[in-house]
């Protein structure tokens, strides 16, 4: 942690940044304007950048989804041709999984983990910046393929040998594989960073079992990423080597095993689905207690069931491959493990319901989204259990029933949780509260829209509509309630209702930004440490690092139990706690300086991969950039020598005051 505290008698907290450098370029100091964002290493700014970028990709992926639904709205759709349709569903899934939900969760984790554990930044601030830029450049790189010969078209799990050069001769899959490689490194650096942050930088007194539940769930996610990402890294390397350098890994004529890719992909891919949904479980576990005015029911059970999901999640991957002829023993084993993993998930759902049971429920938008998650995720979870029954799954494989299932868990679970978190933490991040009335419309339109869109897919799938079918003919449509055309139309209408719901969110953001009303310090009467600082938090997060005595530390500083009546009574307001902190503020806080190198290093990677596809000379150029940046990085002081901390004490202030510029 590049943060130094020194005993200097200054009343107000001051932030100083080092100026001198060993590096090739001077390390930027106290950057302003756009530089304050591009060269930042601040976990909160990076969190917001993750969020904004993820939202952008959410819109991109959403437009792709709408084009798919337009194509399928009526028999013999003519919106897209078969080739473009393949690219559309591949990129829709890739964008939503890798460029929206994962980075959105990374954004929440970045912003809130240090705040929730009472730290001033993450363990490796520059690596944090590197992660964001790699994600952004990787995402752009994947999408570049739209403009250079066509995007990837093999489906998001890109089964080889179908994704080999014979069946997909454009460069789409090359862009896809290399781009995901880059975002994979981003996830890996993020995982290392956050694991070290959580293990090493908790506030004094915060044992693991006093850690806020969101931080716990995100920690499980980081471990899943840590071990899952290298497996897809291997798979992507094999595929890229096959497509670009003549390796034969998936060449069946040479005796290759077509199941190799499937195994590697799903050993990554199944932990991945928990990577997508556990962050939302964490958010919901924060939101429900706050708006039920009760502590989380069975906190240790929620923690351990989360960890159990993390473990068992490694033993269920082959349920994605029941139709591939694994043999009866494998199928039986993976059926059973798949049924088993429903248990810890069920534990969580029971805990959430019991958290609300008997509570004084406050139906804010955040709370509604959380309740929506419980209901809709359970629907998706139940259809998931039906998949664990292998004979039934063999019927449903590659039908719309699967599409219905994973949209219920990923949209009903993942995305609703993300929106719950956005409404809950918006005042924390921006100091203003999102409009609750618009939020109400946003919630209901999204929930109705999602059920209209994905509900009918259960029927369509059981009727036999294959996943990834780009057209259906009138002749194949069933009768009455089982009519393909009717339910496809309903789903398409639903997708537009859903879109209006999401547009309302964006409108809400604009309206909130223009509304001058500030949010109160503790608008929801929250429980965890991130609320024990200003909105938005200061650059150094806390004026004084809190010492933790309780789970839900902030709540216990506000309330204590009356021994006579056994009721909680308020002993302090958030404002009083804040004022107390400001009085005792640490004299001198040093935050890590901004740095040029993360963005430069990250930029080198897509140059290398671009060169791998088109010209090795460009790849060499990219490698030089990476090499140069890595040395600039290594030689740059992350903490400055003493002379840099000669401060200008003439202007002490409680605002963020950058000193040591001279």
């Amino acid at each position, binding site marked *: *942690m590049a943060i130094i505290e020194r005993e200097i008698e200054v009343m107000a907290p001051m932030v100083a940044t080092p100026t001198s450098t060993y590096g090739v370029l001077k390390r930027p100091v106290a950057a302003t304007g756009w530089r304050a964002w591009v060269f930042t290493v601040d976990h909160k700014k990076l969190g917001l950048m993750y969020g904004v970028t993820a939202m952008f990709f959410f819109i991109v992926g959403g437009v792709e989804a709408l084009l798919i639904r337009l194509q399928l709205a009526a028999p013999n759709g003519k919106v897209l041709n078969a080739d473009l349709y393949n690219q559309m569903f591949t990129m829709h899934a890739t964008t939503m999984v890798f460029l929206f939900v994962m980075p959105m969760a990374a954004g929440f984790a970045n912003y809130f983990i240090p705040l929730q554990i009472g730290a001033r930044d993450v363990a490796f601030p520059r690596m944090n910046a590197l992660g964001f830029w790699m994600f952004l450049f990787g995402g752009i790189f994947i999408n570049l393929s739209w403009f250079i010969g066509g995007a990837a078209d093999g489906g998001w799990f890109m089964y080889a040998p179908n994704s080999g050069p014979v069946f997909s001769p454009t460069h789409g899959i090359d862009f896809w594989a290399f781009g995901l490689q880059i975002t994979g490194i981003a996830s890996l650096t993020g995982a290392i960073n956050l694991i070290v942050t959580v293990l090493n*930088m908790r506030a004094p007194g915060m044992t693991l079992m006093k850690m806020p539940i969101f931080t716990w769930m995100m920690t499980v996610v980081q471990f899943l990423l840590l071990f899952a990402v290298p497996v897809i890294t291997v798979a992507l390397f094999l595929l890229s080597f096959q497509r670009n350098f003549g390796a034969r890994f998936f060449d069946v004529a*040479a005796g290759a095993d077509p199941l190799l890719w499937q195994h590697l992909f799903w050993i990554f891919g199944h932990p991945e689905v928990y990577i997508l949904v556990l962050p939302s479980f964490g958010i919901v576990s924060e939101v429900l207690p706050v708006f039920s005015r009760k502590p989380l029911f069975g906190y240790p059970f929620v923690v351990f069931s989360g960890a159990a999901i993390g473990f068992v999640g490694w033993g269920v991957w082959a349920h994605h491959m029941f139709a591939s002829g694994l043999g009866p023993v494998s199928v039986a084993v993976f059926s059973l493990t798949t049924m088993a993993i429903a248990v810890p998930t069920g534990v969580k759902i029971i805990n959430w319901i019991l958290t609300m049971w008997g509570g004084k429920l406050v139906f804010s938008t955040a709370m509604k989204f959380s309740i929506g998650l419980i209901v809709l995720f359970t629907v998706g979870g139940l259809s998931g259990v039906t998949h664990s029954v292998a004979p039934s799954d063999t019927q449903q494989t590659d039908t719309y029933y699967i599409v219905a299932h994973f949209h219920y868990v990923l949209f009903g679970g993942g995305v609703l949780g993300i929106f719950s978190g956005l409404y809950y933490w918006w005042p924390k991040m921006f100091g203003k509260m999102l409009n609750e009335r618009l939020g109400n419309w946003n919630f209901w339109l999204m929930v109705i829209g999602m059920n209209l869109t994905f509900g009918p897919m259960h029927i369509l799938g059981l009727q036999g509509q294959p996943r990834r079918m780009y057209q259906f003919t009138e002749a194949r449509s069933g009768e009455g309630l089982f009519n393909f055309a009717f339910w496809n139309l309903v789903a398409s209408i639903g997708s537009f209702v859903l879109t209006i719901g999401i547009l309302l969110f964006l409108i809400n953001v604009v309206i909130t930004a223009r509304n001058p009303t500030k949010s109160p310090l503790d608008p929801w009467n929250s429980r965890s440490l991130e609320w024990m600082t200003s909105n938005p938090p200061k650059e150094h997060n806390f004026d004084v690092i809190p010492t933790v005595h309780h789970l839900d530390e902030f709540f216990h500083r506000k309330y204590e139990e009356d021994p006579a009546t056994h009721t909680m009574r308020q002993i302090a307001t958030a404002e009083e706690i804040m004022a107390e902190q400001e009085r005792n503020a640490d004299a001198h806080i040093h935050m890590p300086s901004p740095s040029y190198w993360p963005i430069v290093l990250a930029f080198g990677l897509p140059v290398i991969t671009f060169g791998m596809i088109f010209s090795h000379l460009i790849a060499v150029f990219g490698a030089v950039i990476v090499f140069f940046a890595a040395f600039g990085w290594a030689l740059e002081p992350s903490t400055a020598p003493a002379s840099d901390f000669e401060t200008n004490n003439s202007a002490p202030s409680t605002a963020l005051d950058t000193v040591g510029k001279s």
Partner: protein
Amino acid sequence: MTDTTAHGHTSSTGISNVKLGMWTFLGSECLLFGGLISTYMLYRGRVTGGPRPSQIFDIPFTSVSSFVLLMSSLTMVLAVSAAHKGEDRKTNLWLTVTALLGATFVGGQVYEFTAFYNEGLGFSTSLFGSSFYTLTGFHGVHVTVGIIMLMSLVGIFKRSEVPGKKAEVVEMIGLYWHFVDIVWIIIFTLVYLIPV
């Protein structure tokens, strides 16, 4: 990765951030090599007309280069020990020797690859060829990256004081180096010693 918990901050685990970060990273590396080794084990007998493993492997040669690599772990330990005692000259010496031993190993691998290629095993020859070169190539790249890190350390130590605590950084790179060596023991056993 030089942001350390030095400067009076204690870490919750008692292990510095850089070291814990490296341990975490090595955990991830296990799965990377796990995937590559599994691929090789699946494909090692599939030669489609190209040379079989037993026809081209020169086990005495590879044993010697493996021994050289393992000895570099010993010199790495000596470097870490010297760094902890604050003996700068010895630290630099042992880091350099470690890098040289590593370079000898990589040189041996280049020689070996050339010999195999001349005997008819190309990257595209067979599944065995593709998976052999990929697995051992990935390991070779790891050793090379290690050598670059060691030499950079020596260079930085000579020019100026290293950012962060010196012994911590040497130890962190030592962790990486030992990991790469241990992986080689597994690869050497599975690839060279166990007959197909």
